[in-house]
């Protein structure tokens, strides 16, 4: 596969790993955060940590838009789906996320009609095919996905559809990064910046991180070599005492972002005054809602959602994992009470949640694996 395979080349990985190791100052520990859940997934799926020296640790950040949806909002979605003549449509990522009474799959077992779609446009198709039903699209994702929701709404408006609406749960990345930076329990040396979010918002929004907090940022692609190269670029900056924003993913990310996409978002949506992020609490101006002008497509206006705030189970430490304070295996219920089969929190059930990634891909003691490999070699 072009633009994919060449960035999965093992030989180049070894070369990059050697360079990264060479840049490590003896006695110094490096903590780099990858913000984006997609990066967490790639890191674990390809076993990238095997290439890093012991002194470089990757800390998993909160950039998982599924993980940060509070249980109350899942309950709201199920409530919407339970209304008469409603077909709820959702991405696959959400289907197993637990609300206080179960997930979308569980709700379907009780009689709702929640259908999986690959694109919001599929949702539109379902609306056209079912004029007597109300089709609601559960919109999730950061700024990467918001433009697609926006374009779909514009198409729906142009087609004069009256049975399509959006339950908007889009969140924005910068407030989450700021919450991490302001968090007293975390000392990070640099950030592996989100790749696909940046195709929409560009690289400028991260400049405050380098300028005001003195941490380097490298916007990274999603193939394993992209991430390794980004780590290398961060280490170069750190060794030179620089803190700048760099773009490793320049083949896809334009420095200024995608204006058409930003306009579409601006036309159809606006920032909520505040929004609750699971594990991080209430963050102001961190999420999107449908504009008044498109009220006819706002599921929250069309239907009454309970909007009940549901506290996380006491045992759940998703917040600390999302902030990178705890490693997944350090959570008290990781792997025992909280497993992919019986998730207590969304870090475990989202495909890119740090806990799911670690449980499904990384559940091995790397030091011992390395020791065994070493023993095998000698």
């Amino acid at each position: 596969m072009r633009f994919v395979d060449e960035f999965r080349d093992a030989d180049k990985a070894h070369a990059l790993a050697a360079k990264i190791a060479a840049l490590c100052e003896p006695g110094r520990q490096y903590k780099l955060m990858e913000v984006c859940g997609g990066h967490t997934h790639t890191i674990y799926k390809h076993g990238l940590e095997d290439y890093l020296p012991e002194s470089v640790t990757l800390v998993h950040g909160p950039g998982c838009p599924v993980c940060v949806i509070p249980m109350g909002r899942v309950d709201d979605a199920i409530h919407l789906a339970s209304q008469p003549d409603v077909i709820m449509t959702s991405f696959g990522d959400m289907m197993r996320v637990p609300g206080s009474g179960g997930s979308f799959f569980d709700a379907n077992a009780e009689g709702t009609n929640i259908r999986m779609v690959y694109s919001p446009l599929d949702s539109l198709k379902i609306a056209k095919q079912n004029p007597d039903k109300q089709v609601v699209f559960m919109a999730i994702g950061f700024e990467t996905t918001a433009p697609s929701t926006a374009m779909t709404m514009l198409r729906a408006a142009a087609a004069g559809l009256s049975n399509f609406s959006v339950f908007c749960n889009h969140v924005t990345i910068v407030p989450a990064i700021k919450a991490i930076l302001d968090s007293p329990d975390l000392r990070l040396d640099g950030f592996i910046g989100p790749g696909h979010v940046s195709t929409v918002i560009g690289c400028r929004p991260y400049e405050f991180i380098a300028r005001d907090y003195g941490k380097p940022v490298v916007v990274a692609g999603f193939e394993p070599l992209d991430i390794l190269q980004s780590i290398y670029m961060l280490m170069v900056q750190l060794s030179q005492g620089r803190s700048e924003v760099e773009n490793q993913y320049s083949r896809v990310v334009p420095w200024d972002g995608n204006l058409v996409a930003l306009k579409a978002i601006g036309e159809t949506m606006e920032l909520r005054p505040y929004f609750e992020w699971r594990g991080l609490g209430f963050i102001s101006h961190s999420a999107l809602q449908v504009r008044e002008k498109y009220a006819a497509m706002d599921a929250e206006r069309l239907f009454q959602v309970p909007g009940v705030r549901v506290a996380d189970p006491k045992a759940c430490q998703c917040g600390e994992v999302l902030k990178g304070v705890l490693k997944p295996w350090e959570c008290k219920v990781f792997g025992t009470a909280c497993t992919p089969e019986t998730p207590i929190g969304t870090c475990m059930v989202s495909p890119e949640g740090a806990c799911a990634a670690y449980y499904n891909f990384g559940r091995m003691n790397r030091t011992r694996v390395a020791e065994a490999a070493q023993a095998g070699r000698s």
Partner: protein
Amino acid sequence: MSQSWIDQALAEHDELDAGGRRQLPLADREQQVLDRIDRARRRRPKVREERITMSHGAGGKATHTLIEAVFLDAFRNPLLEPLEDAAQLRLGSARVALTTDSYVVSPLFFPGGTIGDLAVNGTVNDLAVSGATPLYLSAGFILEEGFPVADLNRVVESMRDAAVAAGVHIVTGDTKVVQKGKADGCYINTAGVGLVERDVSLGVAQAQPGDAIIVSGPIGDHGITIMLARGELDIEADLCSDTAPLNGLVAGLLDAVPGVRAMRDATRGGVATILNEIAKDADVGVLVSEDEIPVRAEVRGASELLGIDPMYVACEGRLVAVVPGEAADQAVAALRAHPLGERAAVIGRVREEQPGIVQLKTAFGGTRIVDLLVGDPLPRIC
């Protein structure tokens, strides 16, 4: 989610901490957690849900838990316990294999075959990988009110042709009709019976360190074909189901390598599920290499597009074989000599380390675990 289950986990965790765990180096603390998790995984499975969900049908963790906690628990007997693809029975002096399957696929007709093909081939394959010569099938039909008879004819004709190709006979059957809205057109249940004439004893519990794990061809063709054939994804590809009867292929393998330890038909849950079954039932480690696993370019493309891992996608004409290490080359040669095994390959080995765990060496050179999924692999956007 029962509170007591959570409290128990918290208590265990605090016990570990109280034992001065915090002073240990990081790697040791992580190992303790991993050990605790391993113990938790080996506990007796319980079904926590009150209702059946789609996950229970996917062939992954939820299915396994359902089978063990509900069916095995109720029906428990030594013939059922191995939970292999077919049961091995003695009828008088004859050794007989018995299997059953149900087919609920939608759409009924797809590139490469029909529900009828799946019904015959799937049953034949479960018998073949159990070391039996497949002989006789039963076919029970559950038909939906309103189902076109012309479609029923198509299904039945494909079953006739599949049976001829596989060398089996459909000797008994049943028909029921249910109201419109149930049965998705047509559901088929089969049972299959075969004679075990070879002196073989097959079962994944017999896998031993040093054994080679072989797959008979490219994986994921069937599952991806079905996903695309449903038409919801608007994806076109030149793919068709790999449904095929494997009894000829199996015979060739057993002739060349009588010491085959186990074979499994790779259906729902995909190759990844079988690897986990080997690791768990034999209490061994499994190490496979991503580079060695054959996958068609289109299956890869569709999987990348959807965010699905082909290792969990169903096949309907592929087998996974565990053979003694020294017989690996002969086994692959025997499979490749047959048209259905042209791309057979050794994908990994059984080993002592990390029992119960399947590890994958990625094409990139790193390592990761391949665990059972809870339910179906779901397309993701993240």
